[in-house]
């Protein structure tokens, strides 16, 4: 099995601050981590590799320091890492990001399964997986919570593709889905418990011996006008933090009056305390 895992380096916070002028993330001063969902994607790939054999390639688009995400992936057990790094890739929207990632995957040749996180904690769109599948014309399964079964293609039976059967978490249930390989799946936390990097692998991954390649726009054969800011179809006009001001009001009167007034108001408003608000206390 040839497995590819998409890993994104993200700032270690869910309270992302935005530059009010450019609308972009302020990354300075924030520690970077591997996007949490992507650790589950890596764990899934490593589990498959351990069971069926094969190779795991971690792929990331990002600035030079995003190499840390690949080092961690190799520390956990991935065989190689590829960093898509080029000034031309900067400022990409999801369209341009997924185009860039899919071109790199194409350059890797035949791939059986691409696994990515469901969602990045900074960008939060959950679009990259589906878009990459679309660019590559592959079947896709999103929100995967369990990989039930995986049959690699049998080299002795050409024409008979491999298959993956997954369970997808839906809003109010679970869907079982079978896809022909090659396919792309996006995974959620429920899937597994990611391992930590092994020290020996991690230490080696920081040396010249590590199998980490850096590819730029030319390497993956894209025109610089099709990627990064230039290749982006969307344009951020404004980003802002919604300002929810707490509206305070102090009820006055005796304790009984205040409580009665409060219950009346709550009843009239849409406020739900826990479930439906019912009646007044005796």
């Amino acid at each position: 099995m040839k497995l590819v895992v998409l890993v994104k380096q993200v700032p270690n916070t869910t309270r992302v601050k935005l530059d009010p002028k450019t609308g972009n993330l302020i990354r300075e001063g924030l520690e970077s981590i591997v996007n949490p969902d992507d650790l589950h994607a890596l764990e899934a790939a490593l589990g498959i590799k351990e069971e069926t054999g094969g190779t795991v390639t971690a792929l990331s688009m990002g600035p030079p320091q995003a190499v840390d995400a690949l080092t961690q992936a190799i520390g956990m057990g991935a065989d190689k890492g590829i960093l898509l790094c080029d000034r031309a890739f900067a400022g990409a929207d999801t369209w341009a990001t997924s185009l860039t990632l899919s071109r790199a995957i194409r350059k890797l040749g035949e791939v059986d399964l691409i696994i990515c996180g469901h969602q990045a904690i900074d960008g939060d769109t959950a679009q990259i997986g589906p878009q990459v599948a679309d660019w590559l014309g592959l079947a896709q399964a999103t929100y995967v919570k369990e990989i039930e079964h995986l049959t690699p293609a049998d080299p002795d039976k050409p024409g008979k593709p491999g298959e993956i059967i997954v369970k997808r978490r839906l809003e109010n249930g679970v869907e079982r889905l079978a896809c022909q390989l090659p396919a792309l799946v996006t995974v959620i936390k429920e899937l597994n418990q990611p391992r930590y990097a092994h020290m020996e692998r991690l230490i080696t991954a920081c040396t010249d011996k590590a199998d980490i390649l850096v590819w730029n726009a030319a390497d993956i054969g894209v025109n610089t006008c099709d990627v990064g800011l230039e290749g982006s179809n969307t344009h951020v006009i404004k980003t802002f933090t919604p300002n929810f001001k707490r509206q305070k009001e102090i009820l006055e009167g005796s304790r009984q009056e205040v409580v009665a007034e409060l219950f009346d108001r709550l009843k009239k408003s849409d406020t739900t305390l826990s479930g439906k608000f019912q009646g007044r206390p005796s």
Partner: protein
Amino acid sequence: MKKSDTPVKIRSNVEDMVRKTMKDFVDKEVIPIAREYDEQAKFPDHLFKQLGDMGLFGIRYPRDAGGSGGNTTLYCIAMQELARGLMSLGATVAMQCLMATNGLYLYGTPELHERYLYPALKGEKKGAFQLTEPDAGSDLKAVSTRATRTADGWVINGMKTWATSGPRADFHTVLCQTDPSKGLKGLGFFLVPSDTPGFSFSKPFDLLGTRSSSISEIYFSDCHIPAHHHLGQEGQGLSVLLKILAEIRIMTASLALGLHRAAMDDSVQYCKQRTAFGQPIGNYQLIQAKIANMAVNLEAGQLMVDKVTHLIDNGRSCLNEASMAKYFTVESACAAADEATRIFGGYAYSMEYSVQRYYRDNRFLLYGGGTHEVLQTTIGREILSK
């Protein structure tokens, strides 16, 4: 289309990656269970096993010895992070990586490596290191546990105390006297497996701090061991110890840095949350002074530790620098834990907050790796001798 003119090679910084990995482990696995394990005086065996699976115990050993190919700097970074989470875990792991296994690594036969070293580096076997006796603490000349030659090996008789992991270890690196007439020159290290007939131990001690550690007295009564269990040459025990003494001290300093960091992080967070007289307490200058002192000492201690670990990794002798770093960082961590208990006000006195644990746990570092009275004496003596 332009090809990139240089084949770009980008690699991560190994020190950052080890710290990041251990920090992540401590935040996710250690901190959430620290209070429970301390309260119940239980050792987190599952974490010990997990760290073994991660190859941490071999971090300072080369790959061909079953290690992970790291060095003292990486080892100490990992110990800083572990001690930030739970000192008992840090201390036990630190011992497994260094004192409990180094004699075995340097002087063990291939058979001993197969049986004890490789399993220890995987976390499948636990080791202990025994110098201290009831009447021999700082003064190793007073060690009286006796190793006597037999036809085919040695027989060990005597008693050790304060043996970290002693009651739970599978094997012990024990400092013994082979010839009382020779004093320090008669000392030697011996590997005693716990299943050796005549080996026994007391009930674990009830401790002030590091309560998750298992520490007891150890008794050797006619423990027969084969000749190759003598680790090193006869009478060379002291030099075996001296080989790693700087490293033991800088490891101890690293544990102190970790606890110092925890005390400071908790204090900073509390300063922002807690209000008094209508303001966060961090707005008051006397509180700011405490945070400033914690931060300055932490920074200075970190620099001392980094210097010594890099000297060790470059094969330079640095015992006095290591002693200074141990003395400074442990005293600073004690002060930081003490200040944290003031910043937390009365809540520091409740077992619900971790600061009381930092205050108790750090005191162990005052003794292990050399008491500060002894260190001050040796540091001063060394400087005056030049």
